[in-house]
C-alpha cells in the first residue's frame, strides 16, 4: 500500500511542477532575438559591432549572440534545441546540416522587404549565379550566405625544391601527376612516412573526394536523387586510386596521420601540400608570420584527372543565415532585418575573417581583388558543384568514410567496397 501511495505522490508532484512551468511567448514591445553561430574571435568582434549598430537603429530589439564550437557541437546543440521547440531565432549553419530543417518547414522563407530588397528576384540578381540554389526549396529562398567556401591545393615551395622540382612549373595539375610528384617528395623511415607530399582532407568526403568521381562523369546520386549510383566506372577508378595511395599501395598517406592542413602552417617538413580553404592563409599570417612573409607557399587549383569529362574543382560548401519559422511574426521580421544588415558588409567579412560572401558587389571591390588567391577560389567555384544536399547527406558521408577507409586501411577490394557503399546508401534512401 505504502509503495503505491508514495508512487502517486511522486506522480502528483511531477505533474504539479510541470503545470507551474511557465511558457514565455511574450508579445511584449521589446523583443530579444537569439542568434547562434560559430566560434571565431574575428567574427565575434565584427558581428558584435553590427549588433550594437543594429540595436541603436531598432531600440526595441535586443540581440543575444551565442557561439559554439563548429562542427558536431553546434549542429548537435541546434538539433536538440529545435527538437524540443526551443530553437533560436537566427542560426548560421552549413547547408549540409541545415537542409533537413528547410525540408521539415522549421525555417522561414525569406522576407525580401525586411532584408532590403523589393522582391526575391532582386536578391538572386545581387548574388553570383547559382550560389543561392542550395538554399532554395520549392521556389523559395531560405537564407542569405554567410560564407561560401571551397578547397584548393596549398603547397610549400621549399619541399618541392628539395626534391628537385620547380614549384611554379612542376606542381601537380592532374591526379596522375600527383602520383609522380608524391613519388619524388615522400620521405619514409621504413613504413612510417616522415614527409608526406600530399594527403587528402579525410573526414570531408562530400566536399573533397566526391568531385574526383564527378570529374570522371560519375556522381553519388541519380539525377532525381532517388537512388545511389556511385558504383560506376568513375567510382571504381577513384576508389582504386585511393587504394593505390594508401598504406596497401604506394603508401603516400593515410587517414591515421595528423591532418595535413594542421601541420602545414608549422612548416616542419612533414607535409608539402594540402587541400584547404582561403582562410588558412589568414591563419598562417598569425601562426607563422615568418613563413607567411617569405611567400614560400602558393595556392594552385584542385587537380583534375587527365581524361576528366567535367572540369570541376572541389565542391563548395555554404553557410547561410536562416530564421526560425516557429517564432512570432515580429521576431521573424526583425531577424530578417538583422540578417539584411549583416550581409550589407561583405567587404568587412572578407577583410576581417577571410570569408567570401558571393555578392556581386564584393567581386568588384578592392578588398576582394587585392586578396591573394581570392580570384582563384572564385574561378574554381564557378566551375564546380555545390556539396550535395539531401536529408541523409551526413549519413552518406559516413558510409563513404567507411568504404574508403576499408579500402585504404584494411585492404578491402575496391569493387566490393563500392558495391557495399551503394547498397547501404540505397537502403538509407529507402528509409532504412
Amino acid at each position: 500500500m505504502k509503495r503505491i501511495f508514495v508512487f502517486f505522490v511522486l506522480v502528483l508532484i511531477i505533474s504539479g511542477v510541470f503545470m507551474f512551468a511557465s511558457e514565455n511567448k511574450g508579445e511584449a514591445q521589446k523583443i530579444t532575438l537569439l542568434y547562434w553561430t560559430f566560434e571565431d574571435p574575428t567574427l565575434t568582434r565584427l558581428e558584435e559591432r553590427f549588433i550594437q549598430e543594429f540595436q541603436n537603429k531598432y531600440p526595441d530589439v535586443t540581440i543575444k549572440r551565442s557561439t559554439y564550437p563548429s562542427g558536431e557541437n553546434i549542429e548537435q546543440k541546434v538539433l536538440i534545441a529545435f527538437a524540443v521547440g526551443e530553437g533560436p531565432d537566427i542560426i548560421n549553419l552549413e547547408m549540409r546540416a541545415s537542409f533537413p530543417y528547410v525540408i521539415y518547414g522549421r525555417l522561414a522563407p525569406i522576407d525580401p522587404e525586411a532584408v532590403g530588397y523589393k522582391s526575391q528576384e532582386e536578391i538572386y540578381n545581387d548574388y553570383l549565379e547559382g550560389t543561392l540554389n542550395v538554399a532554395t526549396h520549392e521556389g523559395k529562398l531560405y537564407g542569405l550566405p554567410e560564407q561560401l567556401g571551397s578547397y584548393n591545393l596549398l603547397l610549400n615551395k621549399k619541399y618541392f625544391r628539395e626534391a628537385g622540382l620547380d614549384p611554379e612549373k612542376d606542381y601537380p595539375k592532374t591526379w596522375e601527376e600527383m602520383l609522380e610528384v608524391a613519388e619524388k617528395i615522400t620521405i619514409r623511415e621504413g613504413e612510417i612516412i616522415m614527409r608526406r607530399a600530399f594527403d587528402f582532407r579525410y573526414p570531408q568526403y562530400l566536399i573533397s573526394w566526391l568531385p574526383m568521381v564527378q570529374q570522371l562523369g560519375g556522381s553519388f546520386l541519380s539525377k532525381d536523387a532517388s537512388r545511389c549510383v556511385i558504383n560506376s566506372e568513375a567510382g571504381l577508378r577513384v576508389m582504386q586510386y585511393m587504394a593505390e595511395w594508401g598504406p596497401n599501395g604506394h603508401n603516400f598517406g593515410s587517414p591515421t596521420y595528423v591532418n595535413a592542413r594542421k601541420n602545414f602552417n608549422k612548416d616542419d617538413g612533414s607535409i608539402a601540400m594540402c587541400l584547404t580553404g582561403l582562410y588558412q592563409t589568414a591563419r598562417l599570417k598569425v601562426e607563422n608570420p615568418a613563413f607567411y612573409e617569405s611567400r614560400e607557399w602558393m595556392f594552385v587549383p584542385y587537380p583534375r584527372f587527365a581524361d576528366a569529362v567535367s572540369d570541376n574543382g572541389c565542391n563548395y560548401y555554404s553557410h547561410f543565415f536562416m530564421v526560425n519559422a516557429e517564432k512570432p511574426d515580429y521576431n521573424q521580421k526583425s531577424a530578417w532585418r538583422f540578417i539584411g544588415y549583416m550581409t550589407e558588409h561583405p567587404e568587412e567579412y572578407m577583410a576581417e575573417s577571410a570569408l567570401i560572401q558571393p555578392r556581386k558587389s564584393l567581386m568588384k571591390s578592392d578588398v576582394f581583388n587585392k586578396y591573394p588567391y581570392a580570384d582563384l577560389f572564385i574561378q574554381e567555384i564557378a566551375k564546380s558543384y555545390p556539396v550535395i544536399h539531401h536529408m541523409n547527406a551526413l549519413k552518406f558521408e559516413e558510409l563513404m568514410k567507411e568504404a574508403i577507409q576499408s579500402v585504404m586501411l584494411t585492404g578491402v577490394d575496391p569493387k566490393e567496397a563500392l558495391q557495399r557503399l551503394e547498397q547501404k546508401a540505397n537502403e538509407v534512401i529507402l528509409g532504412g
Partner: protein
Amino acid sequence: MKYNSRRGSLGKYKAIGGWIFVAPALFYFALFSFYPIINAFYTSTLQKDILSLQPPKFIGLENYVYLFRSEDFWKSAEATAVFTLGCFIPLATVSLLLAVFIYSRSKPFQNFLQMAYFSPAILSTVAAAVVWLLVFDPRGLANQWVNFIANTPGIDHKWLALSHMVRFSTVIIYFWKYIGYFTIIYFAGLSNIPRTYYEAAKVDGASSWTQFWSITLPLVKPTIVLVSIIAMIQCMRTFSTQYLFTESGAATEPINVITLNIYRTAMRDRYIGRASAMSIVLFFIILIFSWLQLKVSKTEKISYI
C-alpha cells in the same frame, strides 16, 4: 537475515526512517531520471525524425525487429562486447592489486602513488585525446617505443588502422584513464577495515599473508562487487574515447560501440525512435549482466562479531 518490518515497532520505525532517507534521492530520480527513461521507452515504439513537426507514427516493436535484423547493430554489439570484456576485467583486477600494494606502503607514499595513478583522470578528455592521437600517430611515441623494444625500426603497427589494433588502442586509453578511479575506491574500501582487527590478529600471531586472506579479502568483498559491476557498466557505456577516435580518422567500424551508434543514429540520422530502441536494448543487456554478477557474488552481510 531478513528483516520484517511488520514485526515490532522498532521495525516500523526503521522502515519509516528508511523511506525518509531514501526520499530525496527518489524524488530527484523521478523527475530527472525516471521520466526521461520512460520517455525513452515510449519513443522507442515510434518512428520519428527529430526535426519533423508531424506527429510520430506508432510502430510498436518494429524498431526492435529492425535492430535484430540489422548487421550494423550486431557489429556494434560485438564492438561493445569485445571492448567490455577486454577492459573491465583488467581494470577491476589490476586496480585491486595496485590498491593492495599501495596500502602496504607508508603514508606519504600512499598519497603520492594514488595521486599518480589518478592523474590521467585529471586530464580533460579533449586534451587527453590530443595527446593520445599524437602518441598513436604512425610517427608517434607508440610506434617509436614498440619498435625500440622489439627492435623493429620503421614498422608501423597501425594503431588506428587495423581492426584489432584500434580496439586495443581504445582499451589502452580507457584503462589508463580509469585505473586510478578504481584504485581509489578499492583503497577506500581497504581503509574502511578497522585496524583493530589487524592488531588483534597480529597479537594472535597471524602472519601478513593470513591477515590478508582472512581479514582483508572477505571484508573488501563488497567493494570488489562494487568495482566489478561499476567497471563493467562503465565499459559498456563507453562513448567519448571511441567518439574522439572516429572523429580524428581512426577506422570506424571496429569501434562503433552501441553508445556511439545510438548517438549517430539520433544526432546524424535523426531517427530518434531507433536510437531509443538501441538504448533500451543496451539497458537490458547491462541489466542482465549486472544481475548475473550480483547473483554470482551474492553479497552477504558481514558480521564482525
